[in-house]
C-alpha cells in the first residue's frame, strides 16, 4: 500500500468529518428541511395532477357554472394551465414557480394562490397559536400535577384524562361545547369571530387532542426522570419535592414532549379545518375545506406546500432547541460528527 494512497484516504476522511462539523448541524438540518419540503410538494403534485381523472374537466365542471364545455374550450384551458405539456415539464415549471413562491391562481376566484393563503392566514394563526399555548400549558400542567400529587386517587384521575382527550373526536367536542357553553349557559358565542370571546371555544376544542398527547408523553417521561438515581441525589441533599420536580426532573423530562410538540403543530393546522368549519370561522382551514370541495387544485397544492413548510420549520426549531435543553446533545454532535 503506497504512502500517497494512505494520506489521500486520510485526507478524504478528514474532509468528511470537517463537513460534518464545519458545515454545521444547523446547515445540515436546513438541507434536510428543504428535502422534506421538496418531497411533500412532489407527492402532492403527483396525487393532484397525475391521477387518471382530467384536472381540466374537474375544473371546468366544478369551478364554474357552465354545464357543457366544448372540446375547444377545454383545450384552451389546458393550454392556459400548461396541462398540454408533458408531466415532467409541468412538474419542472410548477416546482420552479413554487420555489419563487408562485403557486398560480385559484380556479374559483382567479386570485393568486399566494394572496388567498395570506388573507386566510391571520385568523388561523390566532386560533392555532392560542390552541398551542393552551395545549402546552394544559398538557404540561396536567402532567406536572399528576406526577406531583401524593394522593393516589387524584393521580389516577389526572392520568386517565389524557386518554379520554385523545380519543374524543374534535368535531364532537366542538359541538358539545357549543351545545353546553353557548346554547345552554349562554356564556360564550358559538360562532363567528369578534374578539377574544369567540376565540375561546374553538381554540379549546383544537387544543384538546394535542394537549392530551403532550400530557401523556410528559407525564411518562417525568415519572421516569423522578425514578432516576440523580433525583434521589437531589432528595438526599434535602431538596423539597417541588424542587426535585421542577428544578431537576422537568428539564430532563422535557425532550420527549418537545419532540411531540413539533409534530403536533401539524395536527393543529389540520385540526383547524374541522374546527373552523364547526365554529364557522374564516381562516386557512375553511379555505382548504372549500378548495377541496371545489377541487381548486392550484389552491390545494399551495396549502399543502404551506402546511409542509410550517411543519418542517416547527421541527427544525425543535431540533435546534435540543442542545439548549440537554448538554449531552451538544457533545454528541461533536463526537459523532
Amino acid at each position: 500500500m503506497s504512502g500517497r494512497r494512505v494520506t489521500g484516504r486520510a485526507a478524504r476522511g478528514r474532509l468528511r468529518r470537517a463537513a460534518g462539523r464545519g458545515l454545521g448541524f444547523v446547515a445540515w438540518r436546513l438541507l434536510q428541511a428543504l428535502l422534506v419540503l421538496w418531497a411533500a410538494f412532489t407527492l402532492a403534485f403527483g396525487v393532484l395532477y397525475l391521477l387518471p381523472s382530467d384536472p381540466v374537466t374537474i375544473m371546468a365542471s366544478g369551478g364554474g357554472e357552465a354545464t357543457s364545455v366544448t372540446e375547444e374550450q377545454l383545450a384552451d384551458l389546458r393550454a392556459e394551465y400548461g396541462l398540454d405539456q408533458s408531466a415532467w415539464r409541468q412538474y419542472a415549471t410548477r416546482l420552479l414557480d413554487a420555489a419563487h413562491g408562485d403557486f398560480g391562481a385559484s380556479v374559483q376566484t382567479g386570485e393568486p394562490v399566494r394572496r388567498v393563503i395570506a388573507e386566510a392566514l391571520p385568523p388561523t394563526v390566532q386560533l392555532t397559536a392560542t390552541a398551542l399555548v393552551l395545549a402546552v400549558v394544559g398538557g404540561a400542567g396536567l402532567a406536572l400535577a399528576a406526577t406531583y400529587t401524593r394522593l393516589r386517587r387524584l393521580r389516577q384521575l389526572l392520568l386517565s384524562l389524557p386518554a379520554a382527550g385523545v380519543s374524543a373526536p374534535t368535531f364532537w367536542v366542538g359541538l358539545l361545547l357549543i351545545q353546553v357553553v353557548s346554547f345552554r349557559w349562554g356564556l360564550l358565542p358559538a360562532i363567528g369571530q369578534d374578539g377574544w370571546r369567540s376565540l375561546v371555544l374553538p381554540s379549546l376544542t383544537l387544543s384538546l387532542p394535542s394537549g392530551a398527547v403532550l400530557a401523556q408523553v410528559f407525564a411518562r417521561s417525568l415519572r421516569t426522570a423522578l425514578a432516576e438515581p440523580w433525583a434521589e441525589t437531589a432528595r438526599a441533599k434535602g431538596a423539597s419535592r417541588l424542587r426535585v420536580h421542577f428544578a431537576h426532573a422537568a428539564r430532563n423530562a422535557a425532550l420527549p414532549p418537545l419532540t411531540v410538540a413539533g409534530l403536533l403543530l401539524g395536527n393543529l393546522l389540520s385540526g383547524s379545518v374541522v374546527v373552523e368549519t364547526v365554529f364557522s370561522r374564516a381562516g386557512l382551514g375553511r379555505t382548504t375545506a372549500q378548495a377541496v370541495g371545489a377541487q381548486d387544485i392550484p389552491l390545494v397544492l399551495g396549502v399543502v406546500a404551506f402546511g409542509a413548510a410550517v411543519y418542517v420549520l416547527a421541527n427544525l426549531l425543535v431540533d435546534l432547541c435540543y442542545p439548549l435543553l440537554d448538554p449531552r446533545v451538544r457533545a454528541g454532535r461533536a463526537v459523532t460528527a
Partner: protein
Amino acid sequence: MTVPDTRPGAEDAAGAADVAGAEGAPAAGESPPLLAVRGLRVAYGETEVVRGVDLDVCRGETVALVGASGSGKSTTAHALVGLLPGGGRRTAGRIAFDGEDLAAAPERRLRERRGRDIGLVPQDPMVALNPVQRVGRQVAEALLVHRLATRRAARERAVELLGHAGLPDPETTAVQYPHELSGGMRQRVLIAVALAAGPRLLIADEPTSALDVTVQRQILDHLERLARESGTALLLITHDLGVAADRAARTLVMSRGEVVEHGPTAEVLGNPRHADTRRLLAAAPSLAWPGPGGRAPAGPAPAGPAADPGRADPGRADPGRAEGARAEAGRGGELLLAEGLVKDFPLPRATGRRALRAVDGVGFHVARGETFALVGESGSGKSTTARLAVGLARPTAGRVCFAGQDLAGLRPGELRRLRRRMQIVYQNPYSSLDPRHTVAELIGEPLRAFRTHGRRERTRRAAELLDQVALPSAALRRRPRELSGGQRQRVALARALALEPDLVVCDEPVSALDVSVQAQILTLLATLQRELGLAYLFISHDLAVVRQIAHRVGVMQQGRLVETGPAERLFTAPAHPYTRQLLAAIPGGRARAEGRP
C-alpha cells in the same frame, strides 16, 4: 487463614487514626449514640428485605456495614434517611438520630435533616448526577436548599468543596457537565455534594468501589480527618472487607436482611464466626493479595500468567485459531500496536483553556494471546487510550496498527471488517445490555449486524457461546433484568466473543461486580484466553484485579504511560515512584501490615 487478634492502633501512625474513631465506641462513650437504630424492618410488597436491624453509630465514629449484594445493606442505608425507592416501605423500627426518632418524623422534618445533618454518597456515580446541570451548581444546591449560603457564596464554596473531594482542577470541573467527567471524578463530585452542608453523619453507599486505589485513600483519609476534626460520623456500606478493615472501628456483617455478626473490626475479621463473613473474607482480592514482594497470590482465582505454563509464549498461535493468524505475519504475533498516541478534548470556553490533553504520547503493543493491562486513576486517560486503540475515537496524533494495518488509513468498510476482530466489554453490565432484548437476541446481535449467520444458526451459536461463558442454555430466553450482575457480564462477554475476535478490550469489566463474582469472571477470562488464544487489553484501576490477570502492565498517570513491564516485575520491583504509590494504596494494606493474610 489465621489472624492474630490484635487491637488496631498498636502499630503504626495510620492505625492510630482508627483508634481516634474507636474512642467513640458505645462501650466507651457515656453520651447516647448519634444514630441508634432498633428493629428496623423494610419490605418491598410482601417481601421483607431488612429484618430487624440494630445499628449504633457514635459521634465521629466510622462503622462499616458489610455484606454481599442483596444482603439488605444498601436498603438499610436508604431507609435511614427515608429515601426508599418506590414500593419499599419501613414496616417497623426506631431510627433515633440525635435523640429524635426519624421513623416517626414527618417528611418535612426529614427533609431538613437530609443533607444538612445526614449526607448520603450514592452508589453508581455514572447516573447519580443530574445530566443537564453544571456540576458546580449541583454542589451549591446542597447549601442553597438549607439556606446556608447566598447564591454567590455557595458557588465559591462549591469550587472549594470540589477541591477538597480530590478533584485536581475544581474551577474547571465546576463549569463542566457530568458527562464530561469520568466515573471517578463524578463520585468525587458526589462526595463534595454530600459533605457540602457539613453533616454530622455521612452514609456512604459503596462510595469507593468505582474509585482508584489512590483516590480511595485520599477520600477516605479526608473523611477520617473530617471525622476527627468536626465529629462527623461515617457509616460505610461496602462489600469490600479490605475497605472496612482499613477504616472502620466497628464492623457489622449483614446477610439476608439481618445483622449476622458485629463487633470491633479486628475481631470480626480475625475471628469470623458466620459463614458469610468467611466467604466475604475469602473473596476480598485486596486482602488475599500479599502485596509487593510477597508470595504468590493465595486468592481464589490464581488465574494469572504463572498459573498456565503454556502462556510463557504469548505469541504462540493456537492450532484451533490458525485462521485467526491470517495474513499479518512478519510482526512477530504483535496484534495491536499503538505509537505516540495523543488525544485532545476541547474545553468549554468559560475555563479559559482550549483543550484538555487526555492522552499524551502513549505507545504500547499487545501480542496475540496476551493480556496487557493499563492501570491508572480515573482521568489518567486509560479508557480514552482504549477507545483510540480500537478506532472508536480518532487520535489527535500518533497511530494505531491492528494486525499490521494502520487504522487511520482504512476506509469505513475496511475499518468495520477489522472491528469484527476487536470487541469491547464494558464496565457496567447493567447499562451495556438493552433491557428489552432476550439474551439470545443480545448475543445474536453482532452476528446479525455482520450477517454471518442465518436466524436458526444464530440461536445455535448463541447457545454455544453461553456454554463457553458457563451459563445454562435456559438463560437464552431471559432478559437482562432477570440476571445477576455477574451473569450479565458473562452475557456481555459472550456477545463480545460471538464474532470470534482476536482482541477483547475489557474496560473495567469487573469493577461493578461483587468481589466473589469478580473472581469468577476473572477465572473465566483466563480460561477463554487459553482456549481461544484471545488477546486482552485490560483497563482497570484495581491493581489487585490486574495482578490476577495481566501478563504485562502499563501504568498511566495524567495521560502518560509512566511505566511498562511484565506484571511480576512491576508488582515486585516497581521502578516509577507513581507505581510504588499505587501499590502502597491498595486497600487492606494496613490489615496486611498487621500480619493478616
